[in-house]
């Protein structure tokens, strides 16, 4: 059966119209497409939990037709290794300490901050965290403290130093994070070492220190829920902890306090980078701009108890528990805080090997 001539004519006409329409779309600049109509797809390599829509809700609402796919990394090392092995994610989410190698190995594209409408809401000290070799390679997003979290009923005298994690008084009730660079950081604070220039001798004594600590340590925690569970059950009295765990336990009525050690707290910042060579650079920038949006930031603060790089979000916090967790009322807190410096590849290999040897020690 041949189609009737008139049918053929209509079909051809439609096709012609469609072709014209398509070419028109192609010729128009990308910005002319209203956000609601913009299509495409993005892949984000992120940590488990951050793939929830709450943490990119501004993007979802502004660009509803863009598909966002998530890949999950289990640690900074895992994310770095994946990107190094040629992962095709457009965007990835490393944390302070693990930024330098991405630039050194040519894995990250510079951020065109002029295209970020929310950029001026980010304080300068956070912007600096995302700069490597004087260029803005990363967009800061979430941040938090690291300090000693302790049970006030078990340690009524309180904790005022990082050395509490090595205090024999708390034998069997201490929990350290399972991380070599983290251990080096704490030892540096306690002994006043320059964290960016640890010598081989210092590393050797740090190793011995943590091997001795192992007999006091109940378990090395890998994920926050594990730590929260240990503190809630009363097995763990003092631990290396991020303030997410502090806020969670406070919320559950567990008697805990978050120390202000005399050596200063540690602070970490999570940043987003765009993979070098991605075909979705503009879309990725839009994603990061929306990541700094207020609704997204509020979710980070209220659901994960972490800080947001958007200062408007932080200024809007009213919840007392959260104010306490971020020490919002202590104007001096950031001056007393040590930000994690970036590791070099040599430090990464040496410090992680040191930690493996601590755990393998007889």
């Amino acid at each position, binding site marked *: 059966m041949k189609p009737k001539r008139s049918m053929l004519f209509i079909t051809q006409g439609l096709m012609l119209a469609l072709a014209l329409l398509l070419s028109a779309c192609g010729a128009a600049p990308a910005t002319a497409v209203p956000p609601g109509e913009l299509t495409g797809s993005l892949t984000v390599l992120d940590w488990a939990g951050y793939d929830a829509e709450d943490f990119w809700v501004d993007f979802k609402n502004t660009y509803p037709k863009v598909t966002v796919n998530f890949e999950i990394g289990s640690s900074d090392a895992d994310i770095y290794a994946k990107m190094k092995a*040629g992962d095709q994610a457009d965007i990835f989410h490393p944390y302070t300490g693990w930024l330098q190698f991405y630039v050194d190995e040519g894995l990250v594209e510079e951020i065109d901050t002029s295209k970020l409408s929310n950029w001026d809401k980010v304080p300068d000290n956070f912007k600096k965290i995302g700069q490597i070799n004087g260029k803005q390679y990363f967009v800061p997003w979430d941040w938090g403290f690291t300090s000693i979290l302790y049970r006030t009923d078990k340690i009524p005298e309180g904790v005022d130093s990082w050395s509490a994690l090595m205090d024999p008084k708390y034998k069997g009730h201490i929990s350290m994070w399972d991380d070599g660079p983290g251990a080096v950081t704490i030892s540096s604070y306690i002994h006043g070492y320059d964290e960016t220039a640890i010598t081989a001798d210092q590393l050797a004594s740090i190793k011995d220190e943590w091997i001795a600590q192992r007999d006091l340590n109940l*378990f090395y925690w890998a994920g926050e829920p594990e730590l929260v569970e240990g503190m809630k059950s009363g097995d763990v009295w003092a631990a290396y902890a991020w303030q997410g765990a502090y806020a969670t336990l406070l919320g559950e009525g567990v008697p805990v306090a978050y120390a202000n050690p005399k050596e200063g707290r540690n602070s970490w910042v999570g940043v987003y980078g765009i993979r070098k060579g991605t075909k979705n650079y503009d879309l990725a920038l839009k994603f990061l701009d929306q990541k700094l949006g207020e609704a997204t930031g509020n979710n980070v603060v209220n659901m994960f108890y972490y800080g947001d790089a958007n200062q408007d979000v932080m200024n809007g916090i009213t919840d007392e528990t959260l104010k306490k967790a971020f020490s919002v009322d202590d104007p001096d807190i950031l001056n007393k805080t040590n930000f994690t410096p970036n590791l070099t590849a040599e430090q990464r290999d040496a410090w*992680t*090997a040191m930690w493996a040897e601590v755990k*393998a*020690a007889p």
Partner: protein
Amino acid sequence: MTAPTLPSPKSEVFGGGVPKGRRGWGLDRRATFWFIYLPPLFWLIAFLVMPVLLMAAFSFRPDMRGDLFQIRTPTFSQYASVAATGSYWRLLGISTLMALGIGITAVLMAYPLAYFLAFRAGTRAGFYLILLLIPFWTSYLLRVMAWKILLGTEGVINSFLIYIGLIQEPLTALLYNRTAVILTLIYVWIPFAALPILAALQRIDLILFEAAADLGARPYHQFMRITLPLSAPGILAAFFMVFIPTVGEYVTLLLVGGSRGFLYGNIIQDFFTKAANWPLGSALSMIMLAATLILVLLATRIIDWRQLFE
């Protein structure tokens, strides 16, 4: 075979050697061989042999710098650094011994289970087998987590012992040590170990027992002379099924092992997921692979040797 009147179109495709006039659907032997073996062979080469070779190649890299899949001058620096770290070797020894102990215990405990299913359960064997397999319907991680609830300071065992007044303070020695790891792993493996033993026992021809009984063999002798030797392949399979994965085990140790529960597998895992140091992790893996292979070869050698004496 089933339709002898039809010509065999496939034989044309799958190669010559088919005599003219041969009929039926059957492929020739060579074609059948490739048809059956090619998919698993491809699978194993692509997803087992190639990754192992890749890992071997990685173990000769100096570090992670540069293109990961680019060939670089091989170096033994990773092996040298492993060789210089005595604690890794010690851990490999402990891992192997623990796997040996867990393998033997799991087999010893699985054997009566399999024996019961094969010879005593009768018509309900199928039902009991399903009961045995029920734990597998739950995720492995959940089952290990359940041990935390059993062994924790406020866990089931401690609460019970305090309740009956046997102890006043909770025992902290139950969780977060190697004992907890051994307990958990034995539990996890028993049902697995029972399956190959069961398969071996079910193959035993019951006539053999009648013959033995006719010749005056008592149950003990029947077991030692018939059941045990004939189920030996199943025992061996069960043991290796437990032993080999346990040498490199790391998840269970992370959950219930505590600060001192780390084993060789954890060190390998650390270098891959926490250190981004694939070359060193690969070197450690290759060493474990070699050690396990040597042990398995030795073991099969010893077994063959014994059979010569029978």
